[in-house]
């Protein structure tokens, strides 16, 4: 350990190993993952997000939503006692966080290949958002939540994002986008373009297409129990 050159080569080798054995194979595998062509109607999945939704992804990053919200339906299968038998279940499915409540599935790597930025997230201080687009009927409901979360869920831990909205005097007719929230007389609360982009991004978050290859490869032998459990 006294030879400086040998030490340096070893140190470089350690790094090359962690890169070559861990990052490189994963990059090779995931880089080759392309869109799936449906054999029946020749459609490609997943499709790229429309322009406004892609812009909304930037707003999602800039506001740091990822520090409280994950975007992944987990693979975890737990077991619990049900009617005297051990039955498998996935808590994310039962929280209705999967895209299709009737045939729920975890998130797959392929779901993310069109995302410019991937926000898997680290902690669930708020609900998972991967399929939030299937849970909100329209952007108005989202605006209401963003404007004052505590008015939607009383004890919500989400910070209000009133700065994404603008209170302005009503000129002529009331804006169609105006929020149904208390505003000073003669004024209305309307979303800023950033709020609209964010809402478009969130409403576009839904993985409803089920990839047959992935489903097959991730079905447990105990899937029968899982089906019976629901």
């Amino acid at each position, binding site marked *: *350990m*006294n030879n*400086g050159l040998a*030490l*340096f080569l*070893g*140190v*470089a080798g*350690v*790094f090359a190993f*962690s*890169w070559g*054995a*861990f*990052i490189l194979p*994963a*990059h090779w*595998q*995931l*880089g080759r*993952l392309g869109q799936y062509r449906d054999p029946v109607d020749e459609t490609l999945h997943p499709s790229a997000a429309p322009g406004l939704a892609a812009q909304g992804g930037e707003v999602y*990053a*800039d*506001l*740091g*939503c*990822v520090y409280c919200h*994950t975007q*992944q*339906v*987990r*693979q*975890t299968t737990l077991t619990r006692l049900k009617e005297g038998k051990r039955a498998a*279940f996935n808590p994310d499915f039962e*929280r209705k966080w999967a895209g299709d409540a009737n045939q729920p599935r975890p998130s*797959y*790597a392929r*779901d*993310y*290949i*069109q*995302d410019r*930025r*991937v*926000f*898997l997230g*680290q*902690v*669930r*201080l*708020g609900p998972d958002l991967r399929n939030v687009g299937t849970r909100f009927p329209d952007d108005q409901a989202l605006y209401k939540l963003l404007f004052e979360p*505590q008015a939607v*869920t009383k*004890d*919500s*831990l*989400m*910070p*209000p994002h009133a*700065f994404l909205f603008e209170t302005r005097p009503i000129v002529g007719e009331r804006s169609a986008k105006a929020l149904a929230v208390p505003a000073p007389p003669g004024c209305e609360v309307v979303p800023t373009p950033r709020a609209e982009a964010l809402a478009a991004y969130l409403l576009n978050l839904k993985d409803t297409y089920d990839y047959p290859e992935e489903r097959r490869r991730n079905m447990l032998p105990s899937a029968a129990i899982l089906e019976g459990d629901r």
Partner: protein
Amino acid sequence: MTETPPSQRAEQAGIDASTKVPVAVLLVCALLWLVSGSALQILASIQAHSPAFLSNCEWFTFGRVYPAAQNALIYGWGFNAAFAVSLWLMARLSCAALRHGGWLVAAAVFWNVGVKLGMLGILTGASTSVALLEMPRFAVLLLLVAYSMVAVWGVANFSQRNTGHAYASQWYLLGAAFWFPWLYILAQGMLFVAPARGVMQAIVGEWYVQGLYGLFFIPVALSSAYYFVPKILGQPIRHYFLAPAGFWWLVTVLPLLGGSRLVGAPVPVWVPTTGVAAGFLLLVGLLAVGLNLFGTVAGSFDRVRASTTLSFVVAGVAFFLLWGVLQCATALRSVAAHLPLTLAREGQDWLLFYGVFSMAMFGAIYFLLPRLLLRAWPSAMLVWTHWVAAALGVLMVAGVLILGGWRQGELLNNPAVPFTEVAQAVSAWLAARSVGLMLLAIGHIAFLLNLGWMLCAGRAANAGGLIPPPAELPLAKEPRWQESQT
């Protein structure tokens, strides 16, 4: 063994004097970041359980304050302190004065301007929202330039060493100097310059975070532990022949642990599995380091307690072993089905960054600053306050986050509990975290007060007498070494 020991040269004030200006500048920056970073941490932590707090101002929304606080601690306090301690330690162990140290002040300025710009970028909405890589691109270049200057100085100092041997601390320092820029450049490249496809971004992100802890902060902390334990106790490291094996083992395994942060995530399953398997292997490296450091300390705990530096450093080593065992236990999927995507991960990172790295840095700073400035710490009481606040505070923050994370996971995995109730349960734990962070802040204030006092107080009258020349480390005292000579 008749040659004249050049120990006088080793302890020459000249080496310390050559490092004085850059190290002092870096340390002052580090401490200012530490205090401002912990203020931001407290703000973010309060917002986490009282969402209305300062929510009207876009700059101070939780999603921006939280990453800003993390970056202030990691890049502001962590890197500045690591630079200062590494440069000083490298000069000491290489028995070579740091040449042209003035340039390092420029590096320090670049680094700190870069971090400030990055923080401003995060608060004004240019954050990338990738953990520990939030800083916008314009700050990154400055950081790289500054870093390469510091690293080049450190490595040049090593290559001009006046000793035949390279000591364990030097291996770790040399490694850290080399690994970080590669990690940083590759992560920046794969995430922002030519973004990797889909979840590969998440894999690169976790690899970077784990690499930052495992290939930069842990090595710097261990280098300081390997130096101060024998230095202050006057005993050579026990089982030193294990040290190289421990070094190579640890630095090979630590970056692979990144995979374990992706358990249950939509990535090819071999990625998290690699992380979990690396968790088992980590134990072997921990054992080697534990045998080295605790083997040396064993039986001398009174002297550890009597020494400020060692109380911090040895606590750091203990936290390292604790972290490793927790990491191994919680990596096992079957044991810890509740832990992924909860607060527990953050708790483990606190244990690593604050418990291991920051404690080691505090210990080193208490040792080196009086030698650089030729002034004594004015208050033992403040030192004691700092130690108690730091040790209790980090135990509290990490403990609250890990236990709270466990509870959170239990509730999340029970679909009968509505999500709002889970959030309510979590908010109580988050409030406890705020208290822990305040405890840490008390320690930081004590530290800063002591430093300010030290700087204001005049130089000690007989500065030379303050620091007695150290004794020679008894050679060949380890009986088994004698056996091997025969």
